[in-house]
């Protein structure tokens, strides 16, 4: 597949000395959905801003559709639609007017049929004459998407599209994103919800402290990220894990009052049933059990450690 976004050694240092991007290299293929995962302040928004023209990179190069985003900004930006993280809309304007404005701004003449199609697709057609301040938060987010789509972009940047959005709307958004992919639109979305990446992305890029730590096929990454911990509270403390359970690699916690078992949810089998049976056979009685998914933050910490190792 041909590359539609090519980022080479892109860096951004703000005036106050804060470096938000450190030599980012990233290639995005046409038609794919790439999820850019990272904790708050990792540089996700700065990367998108640098590609879209909102902030000027300090060094490096970025091309969209083969056009340099600075030297040939007009051609590059015509290909790009941006849905920002913050819901920024003029409160007194009507939905349809703000969408028409966006289309004009990107150099296209009026096309009522197209705008009707987009507004219907986003369930906004009935609200077209409403003023933006009258809309709910979720509806406003849809308007932002409509604004980004009305000039028929080939690359769509969605910056945290489902932050603070209810479950229903989140699923609607995912459907919209899948529909756009079916039309051949390349989608780059930033998120810190791992489920979001899991639900719709083809590839996942992980960014932390301004550096891309990895770009990986989603399925492979999910296998690595699917770790859970089973915590077993014991009725009586033990000095160590019984010899017979050595291959489970159990961790002792709280002075022997608890055992921790790490397993992979995407593995062939978790081994939990056998472990519990073995504990019973050893005569160890349990007080409580609990499972905990590795939080994204822990995964990031893990990745950062791997990255610097």
């Amino acid at each position: 597949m041909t590359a539609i976004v090519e980022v080479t050694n892109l860096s951004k240092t703000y005036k106050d000395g804060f470096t938000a991007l450190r030599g980012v290299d990233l290639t995005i293929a046409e038609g794919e959905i790439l999820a850019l995962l990272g904790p708050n302040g990792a540089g996700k928004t700065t990367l998108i801003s640098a590609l879209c023209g909102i902030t000027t990179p300090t060094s490096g190069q970025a091309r969209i559709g083969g056009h340099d985003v600075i030297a040939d900004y007009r051609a590059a930006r015509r290909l790009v639609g941006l849905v920002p993280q913050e819901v920024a809309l003029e409160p007194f304007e009507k939905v349809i007017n703000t969408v028409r404005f966006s289309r004009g701004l990107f150099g296209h003449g009026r096309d009522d049929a197209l705008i009707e199609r987009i507004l219907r697709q986003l369930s906004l057609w009935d609200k077209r004459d409403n003023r933006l301040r009258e809309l709910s938060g979720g509806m406003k987010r849809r308007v932002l998407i409509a604004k980004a789509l009305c000039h028929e972009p080939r690359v769509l940047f969605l910056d945290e599209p489902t932050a603070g959005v209810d479950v229903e709307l989140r699923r609607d958004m995912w459907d919209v994103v899948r529909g756009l992919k079916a039309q051949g639109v390349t989608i780059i979305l930033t998120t810190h919800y791992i489920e979001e990446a899991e639900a719709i992305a083809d590839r996942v890029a992980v960014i932390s402290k301004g550096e891309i730590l990895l770009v990986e096929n989603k399925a492979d990454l999910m296998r690595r990220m699917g770790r859970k911990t089973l915590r077993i509270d014991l009725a009586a403390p033990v000095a160590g894990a019984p010899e017979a359970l050595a291959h489970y690699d159990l961790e002792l916690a709280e002075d022997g009052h608890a055992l921790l078992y790490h397993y992979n949810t995407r593995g062939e089998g978790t081994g939990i049933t056998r472990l519990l049976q073995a504990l019973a056979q050893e005569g160890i009685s349990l007080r409580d059990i609990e499972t905990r998914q590795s939080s994204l933050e822990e995964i990031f910490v893990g990745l950062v450690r791997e990255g610097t190792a």
Partner: protein
Amino acid sequence: MNLHAVWAIYVYEMKRFFRTIFESLLSPVISTTLYFVVFGAAIGGRIEEVEGVSYGAFIVPGLIMLSVMTQAISNASFGIYFPKFIGTIYELLSAPVNFFEIVLGYVGAAATKSLLIGGVILLTAGLFVDLDIRHPAMMLAFLLMTCVSFALFGFIIGIWSENFQQLQLVPLLVITPLVFLGGAFYSVAMLPPGWQVVTLFNPVVYLISGFRWSFFGVADVAVGWSLLAIAVFFGLCLAIVWWIFRTGYRIKA
């Protein structure tokens, strides 16, 4: 050139104006009427003709200038400040437009609005005094150049401002005093000799003088100087706007 973008910005801004057309026009018309009642009728009745023009008519060009300048500034500054304030500026920055197209859209709309307001004030003035415009084409040219230059100036203020107070500061602290001391209500010749020299450092003197000349054929300074002054002011504002977009000053992080 992305003419669709220029037109989109222009139409968007003009819609904002027409959405509040009543408030937009009412306030300048009322304040002009008050000036006429106070300066034209109450005080003007006791003042002799100034350079062969009745005092009521003499103040008309100055009053139009006062409104046009403040309206051009406030419309253009608000026009670009508001997207910065609510965050919609992202769209302008990420669109395939250059600084000239953005300025053309915003400044064009603000200049049109102030031109309309200037026209309405002229009509309102016509209800109070007899106006015989000596050089109508020059009058229009002066009005248009003032609208465009001050809209450009307002655009700069809108970019520079970081809060609503700063947005109000320049029109209130700079423009109003300069217009009041710029011969809106008197002829420079009426000032003591020392002040006549000082007042020549006020750029607004040249604008009002030229504008008044187009009405009555009398001027405080030669018309050529007035034209030069407005051209310099326009050029200066354009250079600053160009610099703003080149550096991203207070627009880009």
